[in-house]
Structures are given as C-alpha cells and as structure tokens.
C-alpha cells in the first residue's frame, strides 16, 4: 500500500469518526433544562428505575456560550423512555416534548452512567421529529446530570457542525482522488 492509499484510508476513517467525536460536545445554542420543585410547573425531576427513565422539568432559557442566554417563557420538558439500567450503566430509547408542540424528538441510544450514590449522568444523540423550534435541522444532542431527583440538562437545538464536517470530508475525498490521479 503506497502513501497515497494509506492517506486516503486514514482520511476516510477520520470522516466517519469525526462526527461521532463532535457529538460528544453540546452544540450551542442549546435549551437550558432544570427541574424546579415548587414552581408553578411542579416539576418532579428525574425518575430512574431499572427499566424506565423519565424527566419532568422546565426549559428556562436558550443557552449560548458566545453571549448572554436568551430568556424565554418557561416551557414544560417531558422525556419518557424505556431500557435497561443495572445500577452502573444503562441504555434507553424514547421520546421527549418541549412545550405544547415547540419541539418533539426521539432517541434510541441514551446512555445513563452512574456517578455513585444517587448521582448519574446521561447523554446521547436525538432526532427532532417536529415542532416550531426544530427548524430545518433533524439531529441533536442531549447531555445532563441527575442528583437524586434533581436534573440539569442541555439539549442542542441545532447541530450545524456535522454538515460542515461532511462538507470538509467531501473536500478531503476530492483531494485524495486528485492526488491518486496524479500518482497514477
């Protein structure tokens, strides 16, 4: 295998790996989700059992890491899922809603990881299925923590990065193809 072939394989591998790595970060803007016991919403927070994982919380703002948060009227956030959690790690699939049709979505690989005691974190890719906030984007990411029934989470509302990655990747493929032609 010559250098050009090695390079092309490396780039192709990077092309498929990169989106997964980038999904490990919450992409902004993101919805800022908290449970607020005693609020008018009467949120109950997180409920994690061996087979179900549910969240009853409130979206309090649109978080932005390059400027001030955008305050929005509080919206209900509800997530319901089923899966398997053995006390240390679990995987769940289900759906969520924001407000009365602002955003709806599904997920099939939400990981719940115990941090000891009643603490845990959860994260995974989501697919937006509708709602006025979904826009033209169809994928996203959720990352959050649980302490007892308390929950704080960020739900990436839009994910522009993967599109840029694919564009970047297709450019790389083009470069590899050009270099192959030249070497041939």
């Amino acid at each position: 295998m010559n250098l050009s072939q090695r390079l092309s394989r490396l780039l192709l591998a990077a092309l498929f790996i990169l989106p997964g790595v980038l999904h490990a970060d919450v992409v902004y803007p993101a919805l800022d989700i908290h449970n607020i016991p005693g609020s008018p919403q009467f949120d109950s927070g997180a409920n994690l059992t061996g087979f179900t994982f549910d969240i009853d919380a409130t979206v309090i703002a649109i978080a932005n890491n390059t400027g001030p948060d955008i305050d929005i009227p509080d919206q209900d956030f509800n997530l319901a899922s089923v899966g398997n959690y053995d006390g240390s790690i679990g995987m769940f699939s289900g759906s969520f809603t924001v407000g009365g049709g602002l955003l709806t979505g599904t997920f099939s690989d939400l990981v719940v990881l115990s941090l000891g005691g009643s603490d845990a974190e959860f994260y995974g890719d989501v697919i937006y299925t509708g709602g006025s906030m979904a826009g033209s984007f169809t994928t996203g990411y959720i990352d959050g923590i649980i302490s007892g029934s308390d929950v704080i989470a960020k739900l990436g509302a839009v994910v522009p990065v993967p599109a840029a990655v694919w564009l970047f990747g297709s450019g790389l493929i083009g470069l590899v193809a050009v270099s192959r032609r030249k070497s041939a």
Partner: protein
Amino acid sequence: MNKFIAVISVIFTFGMTSAYAVPTLFFDGTISFDSASGEILVSSELVDSIDIAPAPNLTGSSMNFSALLSSVDATSPYFTVGLFAGVAGDDLSIIDGDLNTLLTGEFLSLQMKGGNGRNSGLITGVIDATGGNLETEFGTSNLIALQLNLTSSFSATMFDSDFSGDIDGRVVGEEIVPEPAVISILGLGLAFIGLIRLPTRAYSSTL
C-alpha cells in the same frame, strides 16, 4: 352557615397546603482549573431566579466562586471524584445587575465528578451564607451544576493538567415558611370553630 364555613375552610386549607417557595438562582458561565495552584474558578452570570422578591436584575450580573482541590477519589473504575475545600475568606459571590451583593458564602463541601472518558460531569456543594441581601433566604444552600464541553476528560489524572469548559447550574436556598401555611392554620382554626359549634346549635334548636 357554620357548616358552610367549615366546608369552605377545609377545602381552602387542603387546597393551599401544597404550595411552597424555594428561592433559587440559576447561573450559566465558564469553569477553569489551574493545576499549579489546584484552584477551580467559576465565572458566570445569573440567567433566572424564582421565589425571590424583588427579582434581581440579571443583566450585567455575576456569580463567581472558587475552591481548592484537596483530594482525588479514583477508586471507582467508572468515575472520578475531585474533592474541594474553600479558599481563605468568602468562596462565592453573587452580584446582581444593579451591583447589589445578593449573596456571599463559604463552601462547607464541594465536589466534582464525572464518568471516566467523558468531558461532562456534575458539581455539587453546600454553601454557608455569610452576607448579602439574600443571606437569610440562602442560610445553608445547595449548589448543583452540570459542567460540559470540558477540554479534558474525566480520569484519575485529569487534575494534573489545566482544563476549562462550560457550566450551567443553580443555587437553591432554604425553603421559605410560606404564606399558604399561615392560611392553612387559619383555615383549620375556622373549620374547628365551625365544627364544634354545630352540635351546640343543633342542641339549642331542640329546646
């Protein structure tokens, strides 16, 4: 009439007892760790509040705290815990957009934990309020925060290097003995008076 008062009072009493108030300040900002000094610094601004009157001006507000790493617990193969202690003087300062000091405090405990290999995690702490306009409401309060997009992943050696990231959390004050509780006591009293007067009137009407 007395029966009416009794019924209304009981309905009123049980209708109001579920309401309670927990003053809470929400913050969002950045977190950084300096491995040379072992100091963790959080620089953030307030993004919301509940059960605080008057509501603080959030624009231009700040919520900052710092603490020193005291030990690392890496006994679990799945997650790492960093235990922190307060610095000299106040560890936490919350100032609203009108430059009023809302809260100063010292950490009674503070810990950071996250799954090994993950770049997000949890911060929890207990704060002893030492001053500010909300000192009474936040006497002994709890801090809970999500840290995410850290530049380092959690591991037994993560505190050997500098790292930074985003933080999103809240400080939860002490539950306020609410107005509805007073109304509940009044309602129960009225109900009691109404009920004990019922047999008396029934008895006197037979005479």
